[in-house]
């Protein structure tokens, strides 16, 4: 382990190195790197673009916070994407039911959507947790494959029973009424979902570090067998942990349909659940870092589009640029964990 100062220096160094290499890449394809970086900074300054960045960051942050819970207990939940889709399904279901039955007062709409999206996402996550705890089924496979089931399930709904009857046959649900949308923070272009992210981060931190469940999650994460000797029920911890993990991803799904799109459509999540895996590792499984890291990633997605629009950097170039930044930061994190020892010849 290294001292805090070295750690900070490594992080900054990694970012600077990433900036340098991408600058060379931009320069190699004939673009002015300084101007490229001006465009990226502009994304975080321009109110319209900042609003877009934050709206995209929210589902990433919520899914990341969920993944942190799962990864802390050494449960490789690759299924945030599917859990996001289930959350979108649940939130939309509440809106459609409310619109059809008029039984839900508008003021109760959003709270009901939140509870339902969390529960349905969470229940979806219980399946791989149960299979792992009971039958030792590898959760990487189950969570990953369940993503496709969730995505196709939403496809089925929007192409079939949930299709807007006045939508000319296009695969879309009805647009959400205003009271089912996530409002902006008054006076800004920023979605109030950002506040929700902070609140959820506090809750995740509290659960992980101040509760019995959080303790058990960490023990299971360090060593499943040690946990067993200590009398911790793996089944119980896995189920509760995944309920929280997948439930938070479900909330991420809610923030997509209510905060970005305003209705349900096929393939509504452009892979935010997978992005969240990267962000979870970038933030060292720390809920405090996850919030800014996820929001900044939302900004980088927007920056990718701004770079295309401003400098005609092709999409593949943008992908290389985004990948390089994360590669360097992850490498920096890795280097922090080990000290470098140079040895000559045999040890």
């Amino acid at each position, binding site marked *: 382990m290294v001292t805090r100062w070295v750690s900070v220096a490594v992080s900054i160094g990694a970012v600077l190195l990433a900036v340098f290499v991408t600058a060379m890449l931009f320069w190699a394809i004939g673009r002015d790197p300084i101007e490229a970086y001006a465009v990226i900074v502009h994304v975080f300054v321009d109110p319209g673009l900042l609003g877009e960045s934050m709206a995209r960051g929210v589902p990433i942050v919520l899914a990341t916070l969920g993944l942190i819970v799962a990864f802390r207990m050494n449960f490789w939940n690759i299924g945030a994407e599917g859990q996001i889709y289930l959350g979108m399904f649940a939130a939309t279901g509440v809106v459609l039911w409310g619109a059809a039955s008029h039984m839900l007062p508008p003021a109760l709409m959003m709270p009901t959507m939140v509870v339902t999206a969390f529960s349905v996402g969470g229940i979806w996550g219980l399946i791989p947790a149960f299979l792992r705890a009971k039958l030792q089924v590898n959760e990487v496979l189950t969570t990953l494959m369940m993503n496709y089931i969730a995505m196709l399930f939403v496809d089925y709904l929007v192409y079939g029973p949930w299709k807007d009857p006045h939508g000319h046959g296009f695969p879309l649900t009805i647009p959400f009424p205003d009271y089912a949308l996530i409002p902006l923070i008054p006076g800004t272009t920023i979605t109030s979902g950002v506040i929700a992210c902070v609140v959820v981060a506090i809750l995740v931190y509290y659960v992980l570090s101040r509760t019995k469940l959080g303790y058990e999650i960490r023990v299971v994460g360090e060593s499943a067998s040690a946990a067993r000797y200590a009398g911790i029920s793996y089944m119980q911890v896995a189920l509760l942990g995944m309920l929280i993990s997948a439930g938070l991803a479900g909330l991420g799904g809610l923030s997509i349909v209510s905060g970005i799109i*305003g209705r349900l*459509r096929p393939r509504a999540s452009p892979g935010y659940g997978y992005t969240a895996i990267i962000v979870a590792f970038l933030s060292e499984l720390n809920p405090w870092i996850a919030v800014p890291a996820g929001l900044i990633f939302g900004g980088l997605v927007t920056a990718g*589009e701004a770079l*295309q629009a401003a400098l005609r950097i092709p999409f593949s170039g943008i992908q290389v640029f985004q990948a390089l930044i994360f590669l360097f930061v*992850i*490498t920096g994190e890795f280097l922090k*964990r080990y000290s470098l020892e140079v040895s000559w010849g045999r040890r």
Partner: protein
Amino acid sequence: MASTSKDAERKLLTRREFLGISGTAAAGIAVATAVAGGVIGYFAGQTSAPAAGPAKTFTKTITAAGPTKTITAARGLKAGYIYVGPVGDYGWTHAHDEGRKWADSHVPGWKSTYVESVPEAEASGAIESLISQGAELVITTSFGYMDATADAAAKHPDKYFVHISGYKSGAAGNATQNMSAAFAEFYQLYYLCGLAAGAVTKTGIMGYVAAYPTPEVIRHINAFALGANYSYRKRTGKDIKAYVVWLFSWFNPGKTRQAAMSLVEERNADVLAFTEDSPTTLEVAEEYTTKKGRKVWSFSHYSDMRKYGPHAHLTGQIVNWGPIYRDFYRMVETDSWETVDIWGRIGDFVPYRWRKPEDKSTCCKPEGVVYPAPVNSVVPSEWTTLIKQRYEDMKELIFEPFSLEGNLGEPIRDQDGKVRIDGKIVPRADHDMLWSMNWFVDYVKSPIPK
């Protein structure tokens, strides 16, 4: 016992180990990339120093717009496009990008930029990016961008917006006045392709590789089946059978290949039409024709794809979005904006719209917004003549595929036997029927997924 428990321990990768492994891999790749990046950068600097020239002037035009504007540009206007795929897909996005270049070159003083591969959920960010880059006119080229475009139009009343393939516009009354809708409609061309298909098929079985069951794709399949049945019945007295395989994707060459092969192998189709953004179906037809000794025909889609299947190419549907974009450019430039809901069909955006006699027909040459690809000479001349005649008639909307005339004088029935177009109460399909078509004609034997 001891060894098995050890093995069990080993299987569970701890977080630390995982980070260790992935970190090592990351570090390795990072170092390699840094080296490679340095080398590339070095050589780019060494060898292509002159190439850096034009790029520099390009950046200058952005930072210092004033002095470089020597062209007649009235206001130096900028258009921004959003594409759903990469510009190199040789399908939908490629066609739009060609249209963009065409419009840029036909209206002096306009510059354009674009953002490619934009997921539908992220369209609003791309629109904001284009506006922050000074775009006066934003053109969004996928159905999924409709809501985001309408929202942006309401948010930016001083900018102009065109959405492709949707139903929201000021003209339609469900968006602000600064938003228009436009579309290049292919169903007439699919009918002509069908005529060619029915004229050459041996098995009388048509295969269709289809993206999504949207009204657009459904009416294209129907139009193709109607056309194929017309010529096949005239030739043989029998009806065709058309089978559809759904991809649930607009661009998926792998799945398209499987779908096309299954239509040939399992259904015995010898003509393959398609709605998918790659030349894969045509390539499969070419493979059967040249390598597997089985004659299979296919078509061009969006662009002239003859080079992908020189022995299997029958005709096809081709689009030039350019004239549509040019008109929007001009409207913005001359402050004569009017919100519209355009369907570019045969005869639209053609200076001389009057139909011509067959021997002078402009069929299958670049014309207007949509036109057929050249018809393979294997199609007997009587059918080529009919294709030309109907193409010319459709310029003036004298002929309509979804009519009794398009179906050998018989009413058009759906798969349940219900008469949809009877020639009396419903003489021919109108905009609303085409726009929300959710039934197959009875020649199609596959169901519409529910």
